[in-house]
């Protein structure tokens, strides 16, 4: 497993502030990049983050021909469900790839209408998941980073019965 540093949104934000401050002090126009990122992060996701809260059976596939049976297999995995809890700041508590620790993640919309799940970073961040399908009882997501997506495949989440 690769052991990658996780993004630290707080540090990133502070860094952005410093960059912005430096831009102002220097009298140059170097801050628009930061502003663009903030704007990009403000698009609404396709559904509320809280809709992810609950117990899910999860399974993954790579070939599209395996999708339907993977959905069925995910349904059968409710005996060992993946539990998504409400986070302290309106996010959900989940894992990112290759890290056994949990983090608070949020849904983020992008300018092109896509929805991502991840840290408070611009949508499409390398540790994000992209939501491919969503309904009340079925969510399909894949990791944004191609290498991680190749390794783990596309994840199917099927909501477990109460």
């Amino acid at each position, binding site marked *: 497993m690769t052991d990658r540093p996780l993004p630290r949104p707080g540090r990133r934000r502070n860094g952005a502030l410093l960059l912005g401050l430096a831009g102002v002090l220097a009298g140059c126009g170097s801050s628009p990049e930061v502003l663009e990122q903030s704007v990009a992060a403000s698009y609404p996701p396709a559904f509320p983050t809280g809709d992810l809260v609950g117990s899910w059976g999860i399974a993954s596939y790579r070939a599209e021909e395996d999708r339907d*049976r993977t959905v069925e297999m995910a349904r059968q995995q409710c005996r060992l469900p993946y539990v998504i809890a409400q986070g302290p700041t309106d996010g959900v508590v989940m894992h990112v790839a290759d890290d056994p620790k949990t983090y608070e993640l949020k849904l983020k919309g992008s300018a092109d209408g896509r929805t991502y799940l991840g840290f408070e970073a611009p949508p499409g961040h390398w540790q994000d998941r992209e939501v491919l399908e969503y309904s009340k009882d079925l969510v399909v997501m894949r990791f944004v980073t191609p290498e991680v997506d*190749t390794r783990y495949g596309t994840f199917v989440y099927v909501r477990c019965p109460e």
Partner: protein
Amino acid sequence: MRKAISQVLSGSARAAVAGLVLAAGLAGLQPARASVSQSVMQETMQIGEEPGRISTEEVVIQNGPFARQLVFFRTSEQPGTVVVHTSERFLYLVLGDNRALRYGIGVGREGFTWSGLVKVSRKAEWPDWYPPPEMIERQPYLPRFMAGGPGNPMGSRALYLGSTVYRIHGTNQPETIGHAISSGCFRLANGDAIDLYERVPLGARVVIKHAPDL
């Protein structure tokens, strides 16, 4: 690098596998020399796996004793029989005329070795994989089911052994060939697994030997 494999069970381990041993005996196996709990037996691997890691179907062992090669092999087994020598980390496909095709394999770690006579009951390309609960506990972000593919620890091909939970299969960790790390399965590099898969038909006889012949 090779370790001697214990053939002695502790008393508690014997008790733990009593049911398994009975089942194995009924299935035509010799009692497994294995300290295997029932929960582990539901799955085939658990420690040191790297699900998601890619090993393509082209990977074969190229050099050294674990490379696939034609060898002299004196045996009374009929051509087409697969003979697994756990302690040697070799799998032989008997060709006749005292010849065999030899493959390097990874085998069960200490306490997870077994011996017996089985037949190939099923064959699968890019088999599915269910990470065992112990692995889910360590790596909770894993899917509970992973459809077959290059990142799957079951590798490119699988030969299912009788009614047991054991298989001869590929791996996404080819560097483990020659080592004892599995939970009782026999693993080959993906390219070698494909080669063996194409040579061994359903119903083929498989002899698992724990200790070398004297």
